[in-house]
């Protein structure tokens, strides 16, 4: 997505994007349309030219989605590690090692 990266540096017109990218102008236009429909890019008329720029709100929302995915996943990872460690030192069952592949603890079924 070189287009997106280019726009992150500032607003550009379609022909300016096509000039610096190894793709055709129609391909650039098509991709801009996708990004615009997705709410990640906005356009505006400046004189006779149509300028495209990133929509900061759209980008922030996409970022927030992944931020939350990983916040949650890493929190869960941390808990699994700590639970496993505790389970090993206590030699009792815990959620963290119920599927241990490499380090079965001394638990009994």
């Amino acid at each position, binding site marked *: *997505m070189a287009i*997106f*990266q280019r726009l*992150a*540096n500032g607003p550009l017109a379609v022909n300016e994007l096509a000039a610096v990218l190894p793709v055709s102008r129609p391909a650039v236009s098509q991709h801009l349309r*996708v*990004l615009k*429909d*997705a*709410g*990640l890019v906005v356009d505006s008329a400046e004189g006779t030219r149509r300028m495209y720029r*990133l929509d*900061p709100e*759209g*980008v922030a*929302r*996409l*970022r*927030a*989605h*992944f*931020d*939350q*995915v*990983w*916040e*949650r*996943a*890493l*929190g*869960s*990872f*941390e*808990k*699994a*590690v*700590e*639970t*496993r*460690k505790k389970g090993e030192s206590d030699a009792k069952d*815990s*959620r*963290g*090692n*119920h*599927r*241990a*592949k*490499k*380090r079965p603890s001394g638990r009994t079924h």
Partner: protein
Amino acid sequence: MLKTAEGTIVRKSVRVGVPIEQAFSVFVEQMETWWPAEHHIGGKAFESIIVEPRVGGRWYERDAEGKDCDWGTVRAWDPPRLVTLTWHLGPTWKFDPDLAKASDVAIRFTSEGPSTTLVELEHSGIERHGEGYEQLRAALDGPDAWTRTLEEFAKAADRGVRG
């Protein structure tokens, strides 16, 4: 320029009280023990999540009946320090095999002592999932969305502490 990268990269880190080898092992080889269960893309809940230990290896979930569902591929493999995975799941949690639409998740493990490991995660290229963004917006604007998910997580975490 810096703004470019920062805007489309998500960074997270966590410090765990185990040796680097163990942190890597739990993260990569026992992913199903900690991955949030409702974040599955197969029709059924996953029983295991497998990261094949080599560059080009598959990253996939497997349900109780042995059915596989791809998540991505291994782009870099340097245990126990680094694993980079391609992320093919847009905001709607559907797998798209097109590598051009996949983002990258790099997980670095740094030993800070005999039993302390820093785990740093960097998810870059998230703008490549822009095409699923409309559904994401709808999902995020819904009344349940992440608020409910986070509440459930808080409850589960609480149970984990007490149990």
